[in-house]
């Protein structure tokens, strides 16, 4: 659940600053190193504890490395463990000193106590120092043959660790084939499970380079192995069972009988206490039966109860994860869950994100059956103390109304909401009534009667106000007061802060003018004048466009602004069915919780700073080297996309960026605004000239508005793959280069470049690659404009020794690079760099 009220993080005053204490410890450790006096282990233990507690709170105690190693000659297991922990933490930064530890670790690997053998082997393989791998191969080899299963289990994982440090050494020692042997023959199930996960990882990684490895990887899915594992599945630990089931989910059985055999075998796994295991089993069931429609449906029936029990039995965190998966299934097949709709009723104490999932499920079910009961329930939430949920439930009622053929009862409910006289309830309802009218124009009489009574003064939210104005314009012939309400809104033009509302007001007045010209001419005049003088580009453009259209021909203007409309039959679903299927294929993964297929969120971040940051030390500052690196990454990416197979989504995720206007906006408005964009190109400079002829409507314009400088806003979810980045970097000229001084604070902050990257990402500037070594750091950033696909690329070299930052900015749109550079500088200085 949510954490309790928290104060922001501060370095606690009780934390020692480090220096003095560390040197103190150093001398004490030195004294103890050679001593063999009785009780020395106890004092060592206290010192070690201190060292590790410093390490834990983040003080650098790496300078004690030598002393710690000297003290580690001991028979005390706890001391050994603490020492292993210490060594594992600092070996990577002290490769030379790490060599000192090899000796005692190797000796411990031959200890008679299997626990110590195992621990030593684990520590040895966790050192992760590339030039020490030669010392690892021997102990690993004997560890795999150890008589004790604990040691074998550790050794198997050790092989994987070795592979990640130096794949060549691992392959040369022929470890994979030893593991393969072990996997089939070992008595201990944990050893088998570790072999499986290690082999999976190694073959998958190798598979991209070698035919043989990918054959080996596929061989893990062969029938004998799968059956061997399935038959013993109950002997494995629950986590290992998850691993096996993940493998089984990928297995393609040869026939229906085989499918039923596997399902019968796994049936009882659905009743296991471990939720992860239950979900893994469900995934197997769903995957196996994908092509057998009836059985697939039966599977839904079968898994329903375990899932619902998991939701109500676990901790809030577990419930959430299960509910995410249940949500996916309900959305796919609402019918099958209709009898269980009461499970999705919201409880008062639940967190918002849980209630939201539940509301969506209720909405999906209500569109099929139990509409009346569910709508009644949702209406109760609307009067709830919890305002965000009240809003969500009103939206849900509206959604149900839009999907139902029989809407009578629901419309009544919606209109009752308006009588509650709660500002947020009214606001949400207005937006919904507007959508409803677009789909069912026949309801206009009932709705208009109620909407007409709402005073526009009580509505503050832009979306609701825009909806009300749209209705006033659209149904101005039926609403007595429409022109006058609109007029008073136009008169208070300057008080209206939302451009969306001002745009709608212009359009509504136009429509009103076509229907009731004498009553609305004045108001339209006021609005057009105010609109042309508006500092917002869109409002300005639309006002000018309307004005010219009216001057040209009023009947054409009517055809453009207020054409006869067809009722909307289906509102667009924000998520395509392809994406939904894709998420379903990734059942039991993070994609389900994020409600996005994993390629939409893992690739970019996973392939971004992460891959580079690990190699930070290897990158030199020369640009060509980093370019090569980008290239390498590009290849990597290509391979992974081709692996992804047949899905035709653009990787650069245009579906990912939010549309600039939402679908609830009336069609006319968006149509005209796009027309507008085509017609209106660079005319506003002539505004004053054309305004001179303002006889038609008696405009009283005296001053010409100065065109406001376009403000630059960036897309927070910009996506650019390294390949494109590199290509663009080559093609584009440098549009700006500048040099800035870096503050001492900024220099200090660069000890953790990740923080800078995260900060910049918070400002919608994304890091695509980093490199360099202290004192010279190099970053490549990119950003995209929020409205269009226009990129900015930045190379930023920061030298901490000279406290200078050099930047080169390249941009698709050269004109805005100045604005972008200002943004970039602000972002840097907010971080404390400048």
């Amino acid at each position: 659940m949510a954490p309790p009220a928290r104060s922001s993080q501060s370095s606690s005053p009780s934390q020692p600053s480090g220096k003095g204490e560390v040197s103190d410890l150093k001398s004490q450790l030195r004294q103890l190193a050679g001593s063999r006096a009785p009780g020395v282990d106890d004092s060592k233990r206290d010192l070690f504890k201190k060292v590790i507690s410093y390490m834990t709170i983040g003080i650098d105690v790496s300078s004690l490395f030598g002393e710690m190693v000297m003290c580690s000659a001991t028979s005390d297991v706890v001391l050994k463990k603490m020492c292993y922990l210490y060594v594992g933490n600092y070996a990577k930064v002290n490769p030379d000193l790490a060599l000192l530890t090899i000796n005692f670790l190797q000796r411990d690997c031959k200890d008679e106590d299997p626990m110590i053998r195992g621990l030593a082997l684990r520590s040895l393989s966790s050192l992760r120092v590339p030039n020490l791998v030669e010392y690892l191969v021997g102990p690993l080899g004997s560890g795999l043959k150890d008589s004790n299963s604990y040691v074998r289990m550790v050794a198997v994982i050790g092989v994987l660790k070795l592979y990640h440090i130096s794949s060549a050494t691992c392959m040369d020692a022929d470890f994979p084939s030893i593991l393969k042997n072990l996997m089939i023959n070992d008595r201990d199930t944990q050893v088998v499970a570790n072999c499986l996960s290690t082999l999976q990882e190694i073959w998958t990684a190798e598979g991209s380079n070698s035919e043989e490895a990918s054959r080996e990887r596929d061989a893990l899915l062969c029938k004998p192995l799968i059956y061997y594992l399935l038959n013993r599945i109950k002997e494995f630990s629950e986590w290992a069972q998850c691993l096996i089931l993940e493998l089984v989910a990928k297995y393609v059985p040869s026939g229906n009988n085989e499918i039923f055999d596997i399902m019968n075998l796994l049936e009882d796994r659905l009743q296991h206490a471990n939720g992860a295991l239950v979900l893994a089993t469900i995934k197997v069931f769903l995957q196996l039966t994908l092509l057998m429609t009836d059985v697939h449906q039966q599977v839904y029936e079968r898994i329903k109860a375990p899932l619902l029990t998991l939701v109500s039995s676990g901790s809030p965190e577990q419930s959430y994860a299960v509910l995410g998966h249940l949500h996916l299934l309900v959305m796919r097949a609402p019918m099958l869950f209709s009898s269980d709709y009461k499970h999705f009723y919201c409880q008062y104490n639940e967190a918002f994100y849980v209630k939201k999932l539940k509301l969506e499920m209720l909405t999906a079910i209500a569109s099929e059956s139990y509409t009346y009961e569910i709508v009644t329930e949702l209406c109760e939430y609307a009067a709830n103390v919890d305002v965000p949920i009240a809003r969500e439930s009103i939206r849900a009622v509206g959604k149900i109304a839009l999907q139902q053929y029989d809407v009578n009862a629901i419309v009544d409910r919606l209109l009752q909401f308006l009588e509650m006289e709660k500002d947020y309830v009214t606001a949400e309802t207005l937006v919904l009534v507007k959508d409803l009218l677009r789909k069912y124009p026949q309801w206009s009489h009932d709705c208009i009667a109620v909407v007409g009574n709402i005073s526009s003064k009580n509505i503050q939210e832009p979306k609701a106000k825009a909806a009300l104005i749209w209705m006033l314009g659209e149904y101005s012939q039926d609403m007595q007061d429409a022109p006058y309400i609109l007029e008073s809104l136009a008169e208070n033009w300057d008080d209206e802060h939302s451009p969306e509302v001002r745009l709608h007001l212009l359009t509504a007045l136009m429509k009103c003018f076509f229907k009731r010209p004498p009553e609305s001419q004045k108001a339209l005049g006021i609005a057009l004048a105010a609109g042309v003088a508006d500092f917002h580009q869109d409002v300005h453009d639309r006002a000018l466009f309307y004005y010219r259209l009216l001057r040209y021909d009023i009947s054409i203007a009517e055809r453009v602004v207020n054409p006869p409309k067809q009722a909307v039959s289906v509102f667009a679903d924000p998520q395509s069915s392809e994406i939904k299927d894709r998420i379903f294929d990734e059942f039991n993964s993070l994609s389900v919780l994020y409600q996005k297929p994993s390629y939409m969120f893992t690739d970019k971040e996973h392939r971004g700073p992460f891959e580079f940051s690990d190699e930070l030390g290897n990158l030199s500052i020369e640009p060509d080297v980093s370019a090569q690196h980008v290239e390498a990454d590009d290849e990597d990416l290509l391979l992974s996309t081709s692996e992804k197979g047949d899905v035709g989504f653009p990787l650069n995720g245009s579906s990912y960026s939010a549309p600039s206007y939402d679908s609830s906006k009336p069609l006319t408005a968006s149509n005209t605004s796009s027309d507008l964009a085509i017609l209106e190109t660079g005319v506003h400079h002539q505004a004053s000239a054309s305004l001179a002829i303002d006889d038609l409507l008696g405009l009283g314009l005296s001053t010409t508005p100065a065109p406001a400088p376009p403000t630059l806003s960036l897309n927070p979810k910009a996506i650019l793959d390294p390949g494109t980045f590199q290509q663009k970097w080559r093609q584009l000229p440098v549009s700006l280069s500048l040099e800035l001084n870096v503050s001492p604070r900024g220099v200090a902050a660069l000890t953790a470049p990740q923080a800078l990257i995260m900060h910049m990402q918070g400002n919608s500037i994304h890091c695509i690659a980093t490199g360099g070594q202290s004192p010279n750091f190099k970053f490549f950033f990119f950003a995209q404009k929020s409205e269009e696909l226009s990129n900015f690329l930045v190379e930023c070299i920061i030298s901490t020794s000279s406290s200078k930052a050099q930047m080169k900015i390249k941009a698709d749109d050269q004109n805005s690079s100045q604005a972008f550079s200002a943004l970039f500088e602000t972002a840097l200085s907010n971080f404390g760099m400048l």
Partner: protein
Amino acid sequence: MLQCIFLLSDSGEVMLEKQLTGHRVDRSICSWYWDYAISQGDQLAPVIASPTHYLFQVVREGVTFLACTQVEMPPLMGIEFLCRVADVLTDYLGGLNEDLIKDNFVIVYEILDEMIDNGFPLITEPNILREMIAPPNIVSKVLSVVTGNSSNVSETLPGAAASCVPWRTSDRKYTKNEVYVDLVEEMDAVTNREGILIKCQIYGEVQVNSHLSGLPDLTLTFVNPNILDDVRFHPCVRFRPWESHQILSFIPPDGQFKLMSYRVKKLKSTPIYVKPQLTSDSGICRLSVLVGVRNDPGKTIDSVTVQFQLPPCVVSADLTSNCGTFNILTNKSCTWSIGRIPKDKAPSLSGTLVLENGLEHLHVFPTFQVGFRIMGIALSGLQIDKLDLKNLPNRPYKGFRALTRAGQFEVRS
């Protein structure tokens, strides 16, 4: 595959950091998380995406367990594992808070070392862990003073890790053999604005506390197992006997464990009723709440409480009860503790609420959350028939208890 686990205190301080793979996770992720957690308040989901990592978080007693990963993985695996870590630590340290973790961080490191390797969960069974790393309890402290052996790592490797009953060691010995079976049920119910019970179900657990020597084989049967809608078992339960005869046959782990959990849905009534009434007129709202026994379960109903949150538009409240104590906090949350419902009178709470200026009627209504406890009965009606024990040297003591309490029991007004 998890890459790193952090334990944070309730002020956001990193108490412990355990790197699991070669890809070191920078500590700065914790401050990102902390800022994000503060900005989200109660709306923080258990699985979140930071700019660089995906984070799983579980908060227990003010301690945040934070796990990071960069690759796709089953989310429940991450969450379930963190929950297990929290459970195991609670078990080991006899509680969970900042001080306990800081005092015992070496043990915590040792435990984590055995629970997960290279980002993949290994041993989470408390019984096995206990044999590998001795808990820091008073007994072992005394023992270490007496014997002079202060290592809390056991000298031998656990026998159970390799046995076919991984949740139990075979060499347990008790002079007094006892086993206790508890039925603990929670009732979830929702009464809607019209006073109709729209949802009523029970979530129950069979908790067993066993102190038995050797490798005992137990069989537990119910009088009416067919009322159970869905069941989940501890790994020790054999599936076949349940499948064919609804018999729980198992070799128990040692100590306290959850043998089975179940759900019984579509219950027809609740043991008590709570009837709120709100009528408002010209800025004043009259509130009355009546509480009483609806279906006498035959046992005493005690610890009855009614909690609710007054809407923000209520300026002041003047409420009195004829029974129990009533409290309003400054954030307008109200608690009415009735305790045991008296025989002679029906408890009631009544009074007036003053609404803020300009508001005639109350539009937003509180939800009343009800608590109660009934000892000696399982409201679902589930009854234990008998418990048979085999493989035991002498006759053990068997104890049975039942308890029902309110879970999410809410009455809307």
